[in-house]
């Protein structure tokens, strides 16, 4: 059974790129365009790994992580937060919210696959 990954990003171009990359490595991929949509999806199914952007309409990544961490099915799910912020501010917010790690944009497909492999062992 291949691992199931949730990708949350408001940019369709990035979502598609990430989806194609992960599918090429035979992961199952589910896409959400903002935190709210991701949360709705997560109410119905679990994931092996969640990769979320920070800054999104309707619900940002930080709020999503906080919400997910209150759900029993997502207490231990690795969640990586994407950030373009150079400072520690956003990272610390992610850490406080309960993220497993962070990844800076821009990234390329190889970087994405490398971190996914690490997270999923």
């Amino acid at each position: 059974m291949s691992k199931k990954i949730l990708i949350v990003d408001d940019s369709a171009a990035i979502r598609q790129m990430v989806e194609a990359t992960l599918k090429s490595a035979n992961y199952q991929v589910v896409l959400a365009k903002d935190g709210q949509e991701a949360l709705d999806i997560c109410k119905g199914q679990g994931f092996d790994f969640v990769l979320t952007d920070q800054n999104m309409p309707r619900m940002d990544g930080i709020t999503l992580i906080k919400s997910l961490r209150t759900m029993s099915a997502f207490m231990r799910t690795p969640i990586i937060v994407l950030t373009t912020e150079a400072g520690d501010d956003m990272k610390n917010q992610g850490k406080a919210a309960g993220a497993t790690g962070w990844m800076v944009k821009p990234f390329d497909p190889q970087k994405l696959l490398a971190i996914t492999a690490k997270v999923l062992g």
Partner: protein
Amino acid sequence: MSINMAEFHQVFFEESHEHLESMEQLLLALDLDSPDPEELNTIFRAAHSIKGGSGIFGFTALTSVTHVMENLLDKTRKGNFELNSSVIDLLLRTVDTLSHILNLYREEEPIDWQEVEFSKNQLVAALNGESFSTASASSGAAVVASQGDVESAVTSKTAVETPPESNTDEGFGFFKDDVELALATESDGYGFFDEAYIAKEITVDDLHPKGSESAVTKADAELSDDELGFGFFESLTPEAEDTPLVDDISQSAAEASVKANGNDDQPTATTNTTSTTRTTAPKTQTAEVEANKTDGVKVVTATTTKTDVPVKTPAAAKKAAPPSSDSTLRVETSKIDSLVNLAGELVITQSMLTLIGNELGGEVGERLKTALNELERNTREMQEAVMSVRMLPVSFVFNRFHRLVRDLSDQLGKNVNLVIEGGNTEIDKGMIEKLVDPLTHLVRNSLDHGIEKPEKRIAAGKPEMGTLSLKASQRGGSIVIAVHDDGGGLNRDRILQKARENGMAISDNLPDKQVWQLIFAAGFSTAAEVTDVSGRGVGMDVVRKNIEALGGRIDIDSVTGQGATFEIQLPLTLAIVDGMSVSTGNQIYILPLVHIIESIQPQRDQLKFLANEQLIKVREEYLPLLNLHELMEIDSHAQTPEEGIVVLLESNNKRFGLCVDGLVGQQQVVIKSLEKHYRRIPGVSGATIMGDGSVALILDVESLALHVNN
């Protein structure tokens, strides 16, 4: 593993254009005195999204500009940076620059790095509270301060230079509480907060609150320390180790150049500023937007005078969120076009069947007729449905003008209030694109020549603020777009004087309507002084040509001292025309209904010859007559006009009669272009296939009018 990034570029371009458009709209509508935090956030997020995407896809020029823009917007949104009208202007210019860069990438043209640098430096200057130019970035006179950064950003694609920051190609990792290590990963652009991924002694259970064990995912169960083997980067593929990341390098180059102190050199040559002296005193600007969702009326007020007291109104214009990807689907226009074409063919086939069906009698014939009627209804509905896919609200064009009116009225020192009505009137996408230029010209014209300066308006007893309105509506089978201003109207005497200077012989008692039409002559301009905006004597003729190319016409209505209205009438779609089919000899021709005034059977006493030209007298007016069979060089059944029918036609600048043998009937016809197969024929705009399979030419009334002597 190879992912072709190029396939996602198109999506990125479209997304970014949408972001830029919404940024522009929001910036224009922003209330400077109490900006809505939600709107500021949306503007920030638009810049942020473009930056994120452009970084991933390697569009470094976009990344570097949006990076600084994002900084400025972030400060703004956090209340650490004071917005004023000149900063808004700068941000709007930045949007223009980004739009330009985006197009260069889309067209795969070389990037103008000077423009990029200039735009960036302007933003940096604004961020540092220094003065920045009011010129557009395209002036090309910008002094590029950090040429070296540009070089490295350019060359990083090919040659690998040592990046200014210790960037590796990792871009992710595990956070540690150990400060030193955390800093080490910092520059690698990744980290883990969770020590389970790093420290071997700590188990997963220690890191999480005791939760329901049953819900723990399989992944967690597999996260045994041995398997993870996380130190630093040793588990990365050699490939990833050795391949330097263009993105990272150029990103850091971009960031380094951002850190370089922006210069505030004022460019000397500018493209978009007036030659007239501009007031440099600080101006108050208020932008109020009131939107009424029900009737699509938008009022944007841009006041640009010092004396004006800003009126505060709640900004009620919340642009409807773009439909989510669930409910919309992006489709190539060409696919829709082929559907439109097929639906048209279907209509033709269906009318052929109807003709054949009419020849069948008896019970079968009856049943066939019923079925054919059903088919006709279905094909019509299908055609309409397919057409509606190509329709867009005209607000796509109208909304561009908020910006134009704001910038131009500022430049001209005028107070102008733009009113938009009927923005949700739908119009064919192909037309929307072709309407932008003529409408832009008309709006510029109204601002420049129509609406007077405040002092002149006050002297004339008018409100100081002029009103420019753009209205769209559907009238029968056509779309009407009106550009109205409450300025001084057209100057009859000046137009006549100018026309005579241009060598036209014109009588003094020419009716107003025909005087106004004179301004559409090539090279006609009545501007007393040539301004930057208009008055170079080009344009109105081009406007008319563009409108006519769309199968439309333009009328002018003007009252001296009260303003002018330019009214454009357009067919609903470019694919179907409401026509009158007429016969001459053995041929059928189609005349677009929009040009037909009436059809008459002329009496002998109505016909006159004057200097070898045939005229027809209709209600005390003599109109020139044209013979269709002569123009088409075929034989006709009617030897004289009174044996046939005269169709009175109205083109943009004249009325005339067209002699034909008879009228066949009124029908909607599907327009087929002839130019794919033949060269353009004067007098003919296209062709259609009739129900019996024969081809009928669609006549171009505007070019027929050229045969009429003045």
